[in-house]
């Protein structure tokens, strides 16, 4: 039986082998060469076909860019940072509360927290902004969120951020080894004291990278304030860029505003990756 099968099995690969083919390594290097060719062609086409003068006038018109100063920094960027940080602060406090509720031994607290998280992660941030800016004043005419636009943005951004941060914080708390809580309790600390002094500080070390990521997202989401109808003094980067763009019929202000975002978000992203790499090493 075996003797009759072996010759057949041996013949099959022998038939396929003789056809000459490119080795995988050669094929890879040829493919890479082709990619360079395509890229070079695209660059040349853009360089030849694009109207550089027109582009420069539209996107980098210095006279328009100059008009953006100093308000770009003193008003727009300052406000973007203020909105973001206040939203982050509200989100952090609220997120911590929701995370602790999510971990509570009282079931209704857990349900409430889950409900909050699902709702606010499932809604577009813009809808929350409109709800805060338009819905609440309509529903409760007498009620005003203190701080004007600043207060409204802090609340709207904070509500959204809290839902994401709550899940991050909960994961961080659960990542702290159980022995830490037990050791603290055996020293006579109450559950709350042990949480506050021992578990939460360690949880926050674990979640600094994802929280920084959340900060980057908030920087971008702060642009939604556009829909709250802000005044000259409360404009932030996006609104500022848009207003000036339509005023001057030029794209440069939007371009410059975009650069300002990148100036903040790119370094922050870099910090996040460094922190994550540091964590990976520490584990």
């Amino acid at each position: 039986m075996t003797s009759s099968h072996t010759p057949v099995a041996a013949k099959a690969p022998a038939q396929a082998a003789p056809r000459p083919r490119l080795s995988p390594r050669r094929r890879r290097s040829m493919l890479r060469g082709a990619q360079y060719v395509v890229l070079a062609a695209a660059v040349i086409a853009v360089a030849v076909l694009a109207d550089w003068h027109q582009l420069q006038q539209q996107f980098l018109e210095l006279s328009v860019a100059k008009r953006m100063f100093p308000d770009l920094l003193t008003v727009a960027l300052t406000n973007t940072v203020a909105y973001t940080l206040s939203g982050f602060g509200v989100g952090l406090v609220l997120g911590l509360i929701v995370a602790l509720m999510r971990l509570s031994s009282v079931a209704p607290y857990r349900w409430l927290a889950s409900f909050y998280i699902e709702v606010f992660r499932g809604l577009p941030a813009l809808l929350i902004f409109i709800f805060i800016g338009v819905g609440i004043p309509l529903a409760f005419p007498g009620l005003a969120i203190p701080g004007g636009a600043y207060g409204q943005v802090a609340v709207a951004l904070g509500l959204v951020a809290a839902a994401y941060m709550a899940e991050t914080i909960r994961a961080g708390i659960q990542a702290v080894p159980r022995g830490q809580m037990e050791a603290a309790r055996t020293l006579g600390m109450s559950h709350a004291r042990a949480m506050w002094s021992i578990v939460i500080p360690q949880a926050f070390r674990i979640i600094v990278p994802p929280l920084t990521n959340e900060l980057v997202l908030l920087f971008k989401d702060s642009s939604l304030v556009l829909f709250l109808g802000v005044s000259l003094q409360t404009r932030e980067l996006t609104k500022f860029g848009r207003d000036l763009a339509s005023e001057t019929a030029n794209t440069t202000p939007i371009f410059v505003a975009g650069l300002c975002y990148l100036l903040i978000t790119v370094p922050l992203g870099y910090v996040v990756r460094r922190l994550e790499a540091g964590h990976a090493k520490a584990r």
Partner: protein
Amino acid sequence: MSAASEPSGSMREHKGTGMTNATTTADTPTPTRAIEIRALHKSFGDLQVLRGIDFTIDTGEVVCVIGPSGSGKSTLLRCTNLLEQPTQGQVLIAGTDITDPDVDIDRLRRRIGMVFQQFNLFAHLSVLDNLTIAQRRVLGRDKAEAVQVARQNLVRVGLADKEDSYPAQLSGGQQQRVAIARALSMGPELMLFDEPTSALDPELVGDVLAVMRGLADDGMTMMVVTHEMGFAREVADRVVFMDDGVIVEQGTPDEVLTNPRQPRTREFLARVLRPADTVTKS
């Protein structure tokens, strides 16, 4: 049958004063019950882990608990300071039934030091802060006093030069000695040890055992779950052998370790003692 058979009034009174003034642990003229456990049962779901434990530890006594893995040693220890809630039965610490819901367990735990197999040092705090945080937050000591007590205890465990280190910078043996110093800084009347050397490299075990021996010599009441038969033989006043959730046999080290009466004890000792260097972990 429950509350009727309590220890005599004089004992309770004596420990009663000790309770309100937790810093005086030294003057105990007559031996009193540091721990009294009555008909203790503990189940996790359907799993009966402790099936009726009765035993006592007198003040100043050193008791080693031995037994095979899964026999419920850790659970017994953890019921003693209510890290686990007993399913049934009573645990009396110096005459106070800690299973009584009216007992302030946080106040009581200050008086019971505990040392874990995995050390459980606070990873985000320096050695000194590990030793002072509970003194300050729980006992309300001011910083100067807490630091002074901490330094005394670091000297006691031979790590005075490590107060600024972080736990991750220390060897396992050093971490465990810091953990002992941390527990001692609260001025406990009683120390519980759950396999304090089982997670250590063999060459680091000796330092930790030496510290524990010193504690025993100083008269500390100790309940030690351990696989270190040498330590049990030399240091323990009494050895308790547990198997399958019950105490099978107890007595002096000589009685239990050298001349065990129960077949199960003999079997266990034969398994543990024969290959002399597999004693550390099962």
